[in-house]
């Protein structure tokens, strides 16, 4: 429960020598140490500040359990895209600034001992935009989840498709949607966590195709962003437009989960989807002698729980 994250301060410029800076929501002075203690949630106004991919993994994965998949994938520049600067230069800068290889990391991890496939996006890497590498990492993560039967958790943060890869980017929506369909067929549980901000192509593909959709408080979640709407159709935006709370009210997400409850909630939901009570927090099944009936869903559930609760669980054979 007392999860900690080690904050990585990549924010440059306006912060003080001690690293302190003002909360963008309430303006209160924030100290990095205290902030990390509070999982980068402003203690004054509860604003959930963005986490880096590393911090997110630190938040969700049991210590030392993270193992990256598809780490060697890197963006190419098939369009030789050049706007004010070449695409490769932007990528190199993003790599340098973030220490990441792309806007999405994929890997396996344990969460309260539950094995999961975890993909995590980082908005700092070119606005969390989805290009070929993001799509391919997502696909391979899904393939790994299908092979191992580990559930999939996708933590989203994205400005949309990566323009520098043109249609190759847009089609990642189709690719990731196909991937979720494969997951559904098995089925392997899939939960998405929408964090601030998740917009554009990611919202119109895998993020909204999860079995259960969680959102962090205050996160902006929409397809067309507020600026586009204001500029294109000149509509006045209502208070709280596109925020997690509005999405909940409008039936688009299942729940809003404060960051300090996220890991527990994920494990509970994934465990329940796996067909039985499975979270370490409520091991009701230990009180049970075994399945009272014979076959049926109950026995199936028990079978699942056993393989699930067993840390040495391995991919099913055949």
């Amino acid at each position, binding site marked *: 429960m007392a999860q900690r994250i080690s904050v990585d301060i990549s924010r440059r410029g306006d912060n003080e020598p001690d690293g302190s800076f003002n909360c963008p929501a309430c303006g209160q002075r924030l100290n990095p140490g205290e902030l990390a203690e509070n999982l980068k949630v402003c203690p004054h106004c509860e604003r959930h500040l963005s986490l880096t991919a590393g911090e997110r993994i630190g938040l969700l994965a049991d210590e030392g359990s993270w193992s990256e998949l598809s780490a060697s994938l890197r963006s190419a520049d098939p369009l030789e895209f050049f706007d004010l600067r070449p695409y490769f230069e932007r990528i190199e800068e993003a790599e340098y600034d973030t220490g990441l290889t792309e806007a999405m990391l994929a890997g396996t991890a344990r969460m309260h001992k539950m094995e999961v496939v975890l993909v995590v996006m980082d908005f700092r890497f070119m606005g969390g935009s989805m290009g070929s590498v993001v799509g391919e990492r997502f696909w391979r993560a899904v393939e790994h989840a299908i092979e191992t039967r580990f559930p999939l958790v996708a933590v989203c943060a994205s400005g949309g498709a990566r323009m520098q890869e043109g249609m190759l980017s847009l089609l990642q929506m189709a690719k990731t949607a196909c991937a979720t369909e494969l997951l559904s067929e098995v089925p392997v549980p899939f939960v998405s966590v929408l964090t601030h901000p998740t917009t554009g192509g990611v919202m119109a593909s895998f993020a909204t195709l999860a079995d259960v959709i969680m959102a962090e408080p205050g996160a902006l979640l929409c397809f067309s962003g507020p600026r586009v709407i204001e500029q294109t159709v000149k509509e006045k935006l209502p208070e709280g437009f596109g925020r997690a709370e509005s999405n909940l009210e*409008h039936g688009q997400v299942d729940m809003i989960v404060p960051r300090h409850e996220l890991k527990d909630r994920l494990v509970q939901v994934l465990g329940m989807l796996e067909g*039985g009570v499975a979270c370490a927090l409520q091991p009701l099944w230990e009180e049970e002698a075994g399945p009272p009936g014979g076959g049926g*869903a109950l026995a199936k559930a028990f079978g699942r729980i056993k393989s699930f609760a067993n840390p040495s669980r391995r991919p099913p054979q055949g």
Partner: protein
Amino acid sequence: MPTLPGVHLKDEITKISQRLRELGGAGERRGRSDAWEKVKLARHAERPYTLDYIEQMFPGFIELRGDRCFADDPAIVAGLAAYQGRTLMVIGHQKGRDLSSRTYRNFGMPRPEGYRKAQRLMRLADKFGIPVLTLIDTPGAYPGVAAEERGQGGAIARSLVTMARLGVPTVAIIIGEGGSGGALALALADRVMMLENSIYSVSSPEACASILWKDAAEAELAARALMLTSDDLDELQLVDAVLPEPRGGAHRDHAAAARIVKEALEDSLRELELMHPQERRRERFEKFRRVGVWREDGLTLF
């Protein structure tokens, strides 16, 4: 074998009407004389509601919300429950208890998005082999202009086929007011049970009275005529079981009421989980196929 509602057996013809006549006049029948009392009990403001049962039975309940189209409808509560080594999808109407929660819950009257949320979550349950429990307690679907415009009728109809299709075990328990199509939309289940003091009706007695007697004040009369009590429905064989309530009624002891519901649920699941999904589905279709009483070739069939 499930109880057969309105059994339709050519070779074992019994005339309900005759039997009823033998039992006495309409007003005197078992279950009918106290119909209005039951209506009042079913609507009792302190009667346990869906969230009360959830609180008692499923401490780890995780609510799932939204129809993914238009809104989340608070008149229907739904979510995953960890229960006795298994997962359940629990879906129920929720009335409010105080003024603000009643308004928020729209007095337990769902709009189309409520039914669509239920459908979405039933399909989710089906995907993962999770049994579905529905708790029914509504005056009926919300009769509002916007709800109609968003397709109230179609939403209820699609709830019915969604439940018909499910491969997982489904148990429906009428815990209070089973009002018309709004209730039925969650009740096309393998097992349909009623709490002793609940009602299940084609129409509210008030609406029925104002239509047939042209006078809403005749609701008591209508309540008797409609055969809406648990005894009535048991007699008509339209429910699989009637669950006795704690002395004085479920509102006197929420915990005891929850224990009764829990036992009924467990008994049902124990039976249903031993069946193959196709077998459950086939029996479900058979059961609803047989509902009805009619005359044919001069005989009354039911």
